[in-house]
């Protein structure tokens, strides 16, 4: 059994988990509270938001495409869910809020899927364009009238409550979403087709598979996952706001790539993405706890913490890409 598990974990996943443990160790030296179960559980809860968002994007990346409309799809999810009572009234609103938010996210994914699969537009440009369109729509939404932006009780409960004692609800949702994704990827025809399209779309098409439909489904899942993340974030912060998804694009893609998913598609495991998400979350947390920018400030480089974090992310992604690219060349 143990060897089975070891066999399933590829190198990148092990590295990501290893780095996570290393980060916790470094954090523990700086701040002993780091290894408390409270802190770690809190980290897992924070990771859940990123994990749910990354789930959908991972499917799209496995196909060999990318979804850059994530930031504003998150905002759409959060803002549409909180605005639902304004659209549907006080009685229906609370029931429809979450389905409506998810549907709006899936709708963005639908347009992305139609553009990439049926119009054959490059995903990078098309989804980036959709991000701008989504932004415009949300600015219009807030500009025309004063929308309801408070989180509903049910959203607060989902984001902050604990249905099972000791397990934060977002983590529970991530576990359910993750288990479903693992099932899809390993046990279903859809999963086989996702990997196959990422490897050689032409061969898949010639095997009699409607590749466009697979693309469409995955982009819709990606949109819905981003919206789900937005709804949880709105519940967490107890309000939705424009640009609430902006800090998530880079961490999402970074987590997936760090987890060993091939950015060109066809290869990667969900466990790897979990490892990547946890690594990114810990990295963010530790950068804000031990504040290495203060060290650089002493050397004369004064950079704000947020800027420093961005630079570290970028450098980590580039390093990992180089690492994987080289590994491939050697083979």
């Amino acid at each position: 059994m143990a060897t089975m598990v070891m066999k399933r974990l590829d190198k990148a996943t092990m590295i990501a988990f290893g780095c996570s443990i290393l980060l916790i160790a470094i954090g523990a030296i700086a701040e002993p509270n780091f290894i408390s179960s409270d802190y770690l559980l809190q980290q897992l809860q924070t990771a859940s938001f990123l994990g749910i968002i990354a789930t959908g994007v991972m499917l799209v990346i496995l196909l060999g495409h990318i979804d850059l409309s994530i930031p504003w799809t998150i905002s759409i999810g959060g803002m549409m869910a909180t605005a639902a009572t304004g659209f549907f009234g006080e009685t229906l609103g609370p029931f429809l809020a979450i389905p409506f938010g998810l549907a709006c996210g899936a709708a963005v994914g639908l347009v992305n899927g139609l553009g990439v699969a049926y119009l054959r537009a490059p995903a990078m440009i098309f989804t980036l364009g959709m991000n701008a369109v989504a932004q415009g729509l949300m600015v219009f939404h807030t500009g025309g009238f004063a929308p309801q932006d408070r989180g509903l009780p049910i959203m607060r409960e989902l984001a902050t409550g604990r249905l099972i004692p000791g397990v934060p609800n977002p983590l529970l949702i991530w576990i359910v979403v993750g288990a479903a994704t693992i099932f899809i990827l390993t046990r279903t025809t859809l999963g086989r087709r996702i990997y196959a399209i990422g490897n050689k779309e032409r061969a898949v098409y010639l095997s009699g598979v409607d590749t466009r439909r697979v693309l469409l489904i995955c982009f819709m899942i990606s949109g819905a996952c981003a919206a789900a993340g937005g709804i949880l974030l709105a519940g967490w912060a107890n309000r939705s706001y424009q640009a609430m998804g902006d800090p998530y694009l880079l961490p999402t893609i970074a987590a997936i790539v760090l987890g060993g998913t091939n950015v060109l598609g066809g290869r990667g495991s969900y466990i790897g993405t979990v490892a990547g998400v946890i690594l990114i979350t810990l990295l963010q947390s530790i950068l804000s706890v031990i504040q290495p920018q203060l060290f650089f400030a002493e050397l004369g480089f004064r950079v704000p913490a947020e800027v420093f974090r961005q630079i570290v992310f970028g450098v980590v992604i580039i390093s990992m890409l180089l690492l994987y690219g080289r590994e491939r060349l050697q083979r």
Partner: protein
Amino acid sequence: MTVGTAPLLRMEAITKRYGGVRALEDVRFECDRGKIHALLGENGAGKSTLIKILAGVVQPDSGQITLDGQPISFNSPAAANAAGIACIFQELSLLPDLSVADNIAITRPPMRFGLIDQGAQRRLAEEALARVGGEDIHPLAPVGDLPLSRRQMVEIAKALARTPKILILDEATSALTAADVTKVFRMLKQLKADGMAIIYISHRMHEIAELADDCTVFRNGRYVETFAAGTKSDDAIVEMMIGREYSSVFPPLPEKKSGGPSMLSLKGLSWAGQLNDINLDLKAGEVVGLGGLDGQGQRQLLLALFGTLIGVTGTIEINGKAVKMSNPGRAKSEEIGMALIPEDRKNEGLMLPMSVRDNLSFASIEGFSRFGIVDRKAEAVAIDDMIKLLNIRVGDIDGPVASLSGGNQQKVVIAKWLMTKPRIILLNDPTRGIDVGTKQELYELLRRLAEGGAAILFYSTDYDELIGCCDRVLVFYNGAVVRTLEGAALTEHNLIASAHNLPTSTKAGAAQVFATEAAS
């Protein structure tokens, strides 16, 4: 040949191998100023390899080349160009987004102050175009906007703009209109009169008869003979191009069964000028070959049947019922039951990094699934059966399919489709690049499938295969079926003659009776 008049180009003892495959073995070739020298041979005879060596695209393993009596060797196309050798390939070498003038002058554009002199470049292009009779082409038009025949004219103009000593045309006229061919021929004769040496490769015998002064025949990577044009009959030339030994690797053909309803019936199938009015009746238990030279529409026919081409006209009937083939998913559906073994297994047949298991069950996975969830036990059982049936040698069934040998990879592609239990099987040159043993297994498999009631359409570039495996062969020329050969008329001689659109041999005597000319 007297001393002092050594030929312009002499190639001696040229050998070239690609891995274990011998492309050229101890070949010689000569050509001289003011002569058009035709190079003849079947597909794979080594003509293209010889041309690539001359053009500096590949280097020979051994042998000498002398130009003007000086030994030379080219390590790049640029070096060959500099030595005065220009090639016109059948695959166009133009950049579609650049203008005609840019393309013509691309290797050595006229410069002024370190920048390209646009005016001079345009004049150069106009002169070059005028020389080949392509005055109607605007030098500033983007090449991508031109139709194929105009592009080919630009290609010829580009080669001439380098004022070569030796001009090589490899199937350069196959894309041209009849009017253009006349112009190009006039130009070639003029160039010949001006003292240029021209090497001409074509599968069109009448072109060679009209143009060539000398002919050299290659067969199977070896030099056969050089003779003056007009001294041999077409029949004798075809005879020279054949000559491989027949091997007994083919299973015996069964007695011809008569009647039976046709499973697949085509009426007037046409597509984009590359398929012209194809008619066909394919019955259960039949193996029908598609013959002819490479690129005459055989692949397009298979792709059209499999629903990958848009704009196909004519009717396709399956079991007497007209159907519309809209996509490969439709073609493999229960109702139609079609399978296509593609020619390019690495790009069209397999997902190389994925496991043997995933590849094998990929086309038939719906059969092992309920509500999209794969029944992995049923899948494993079916895969095991198929591996045994086809005798596929797999080390690790969960290892990547890329780790298998070429022959076993091809078996995986075929097994993947047999798992869908197809009733109509289309094969697109399935034995290319696989070893003889596997080939033999495939031939036997084809027969077994046919006996089991499948209808098989088999395209091959190997004439032996067509003769050994097929009940009858449709010979393609220019996108149309020019002849159907069966029974005693199905000989290599007749196949090659038909492929060149020549009348079949009278030597075959009674066989002529079986060769039915397609109505045109």
